[in-house]
C-alpha cells in the first residue's frame, strides 16, 4: 500500500487506460455458454473472463447438508490454472474458500430458497482469465446464471468495486491500478432496492473517501444492471 511515487492519474483526471474516475471497464455478457448446465453465463470485464454455471435444484446429499424448510446453495469460486500470469496451482486455497463463502451468503439473500425444501442448487464460478475484481465479476456472473436457470430471485445482484490510488478514489480498478491500490471496496448491490448483500473492504479510507467510493459503486451498479437486463432480454425476449 502507498506507493505514492508512481503516478497513476494525470493532472486532467485521466487514468492509465484513459478512463475518468467514475468509468467502468468494458463489460460483455453472454448467456447460456455451458450447454449441459441448467443455466449459465459468462462475463468479460476488462480482461477478466468468468464463467458461471448452475445445476439444480436437485436432491441435497449428503443428507447432513439437507435443510427441511429450504434449499441450500453450494457455491464454489475457483481460479483456473491458466487464469493468472504465474500459473495458479489447483487445490485448497484460503482466499477461494472465503470468496466462495461470502458469495454464497450474498446469493442466499436473494434466491427464494424456501421454494425448494430439502434440495440443493449448485453454483459453479470459474475464473478463466483474471485481471482485478474477479470476486465482483464472479458474483455478477453467478446471478446471471441463476436467472438463466430460471431460479426465482427477489432481485439480481450487481457487484462492483471502487478503490483508491494516489489518494484519489476511483471506480473499478484495473490490474495495473490494483497493483498500486491503497484501498478496495467491493460491494454486492440489489439494483431495485439499493440494498447490499455483499460488502468487503481493505486498505485505508477516510470517512469522506469511503462515502465517495460507496457512491461510485451505487452508480456503477445501475449502469451494469442495464447491461444485465439487456443480455437476459436478448436471450428470452423480455425484461428480467
Amino acid at each position, binding site marked *: 500500500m502507498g506507493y505514492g511515487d508512481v503516478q497513476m492519474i494525470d493532472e486532467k483526471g485521466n487514468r492509465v487506460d484513459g478512463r475518468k474516475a467514475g468509468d467502468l471497464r468494458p463489460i460483455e455478457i453472454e448467456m447460456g455458454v455451458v450447454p449441459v448446465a441448467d443455466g449459465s453465463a459468462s462475463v468479460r470485464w476488462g480482461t477478466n473472463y468468468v464463467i458461471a454455471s448452475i445445476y439444480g435444484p436437485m436432491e441435497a446429499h449428503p443428507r*447432513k447438508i439437507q435443510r427441511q424448510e429450504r434449499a441450500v446453495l453450494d457455491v464454489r469460486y475457483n481460479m483456473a490454472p491458466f487464469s493468472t500470469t504465474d500459473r495458479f496451482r489447483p487445490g485448497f486455497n484460503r482466499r477461494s474458500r472465503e470468496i466462495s463463502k*461470502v458469495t454464497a451468503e450474498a446469493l442466499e439473500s436473494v434466491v427464494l430458497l424456501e421454494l425448494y425444501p430439502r434440495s440443493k442448487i449448485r453454483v459453479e464460478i470459474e475464473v478463466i482469465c483474471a485481471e482485478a475484481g474477479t470476486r465482483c465479476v464472479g458474483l455478477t456472473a453467478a446471478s446471471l446464471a441463476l436467472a438463466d436457470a430460471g431460479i426465482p430471485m427477489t432481485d439480481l445482484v450487481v457487484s462492483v468495486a471502487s478503490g483508491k490510488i494516489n489518494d484519489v478514489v476511483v471506480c473499478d480498478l484495473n490490474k495495473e491500478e490494483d497493483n498500486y491500490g491503497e484501498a478496495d471496496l467491493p460491494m454486492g448491490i440489489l439494483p431495485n432496492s439499493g440494498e*447490499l448483500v455483499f*460488502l468487503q*473492504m481493505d486498505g485505508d479510507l477516510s470517512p469522506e473517501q469511503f462515502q465517495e467510493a460507496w457512491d461510485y459503486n451505487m452508480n456503477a451498479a445501475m449502469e451494469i444492471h442495464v447491461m444485465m437486463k439487456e443480455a437476459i432480454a436478448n436471450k428470452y425476449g423480455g425484461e428480467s
Partner: protein
Amino acid sequence: MMGQPLVPTLLRKHLAELAARDERADGRGRWESRDLSVEVGVLERAEGSAKVQIGDTIVFTGIKFQIQTPYPDRPDEGGLMTSVELRPLAGRHIEPGPPSPESIEMARVVDRGIRESGCIDTKDLCIIAGEKVWQVIIDCFAISDDGNLFDAFALAAIAALHNATLPGERFDIGEDRPLPVNKTPIMCSFQKVGGRFVYDANREEELGGDERIHITLGGDDHVHSLQKGLKGAFTASEFAEIMDAAKQRCAELKKIVDSL
C-alpha cells in the same frame, strides 16, 4: 467444520419479539457490550500474548516469531500471518477436522484489520535485507465460544502485538527488543437480530440472527477493513447507524488496549 444447527424458528420468534420492544435476551442495550476483560503476558512460551474474555467467550492469542527469507521483490520487508484455531475444546458445535470456512474467514478478517491499518511496518521486521526477515505469527485460539469470536480474536491480537518482544537472543541475532507497533486498529462486529443490528451478539443471538458486519477502524475513524457475513440484505441507513456505533465503541476499546 461447524455443524449445521437446525433453524431455530422458535428462537428467531423470541428474539424478534424482544427486538420489537427494543430489548435483548440478557437485558443489554443494542450497542452494549458484555463484561469484557483483557490480560496480556499470559502465555509462558509465546513472545507476546493476551487473554480476552467477553461474557462467557474466552480466547487466547499468542505471538510467535520465525525467521524467513524475504520475497525477492520486497527484500527488506518481513511477513505477517494470522491463524485461527477453532478447536472442539471451545464448544459443542465445533467439530474436529481441517480449517472450516468459518475459521478461515475469521483469520482473514482479523488479519486484514491488522495488516491494512499499517500498525506493523513490515520494514521494521528486516534483519538483513534480502537474506533474513522476521515473520510475525498471530495465533488466535478459542477456549470458550459464547458468541462474537471475531471481536475477541481481533482485540486479543492487537493487545498481544503490543505485548510482543522480538526474540533476538533465541535466534542469535542481537538483543531482545519490543516489537514496534504503531497503531491500534479495533474491530467491532454487529449482527442483525430480530430485524435490527446489535453489537456483540452472544451465541444465542448468532444462532437466531441474520447477517453480520465487521468493521475495523484506525485513528481518525479511518476504515481499514469491512466484511459482511451470512445471509441477509441491509440498507445504506442501517450501515450508517452501525458505523456510528462502531466509531464510538472502537474509541473506547482503543483506550483499553493503549493503557495495558
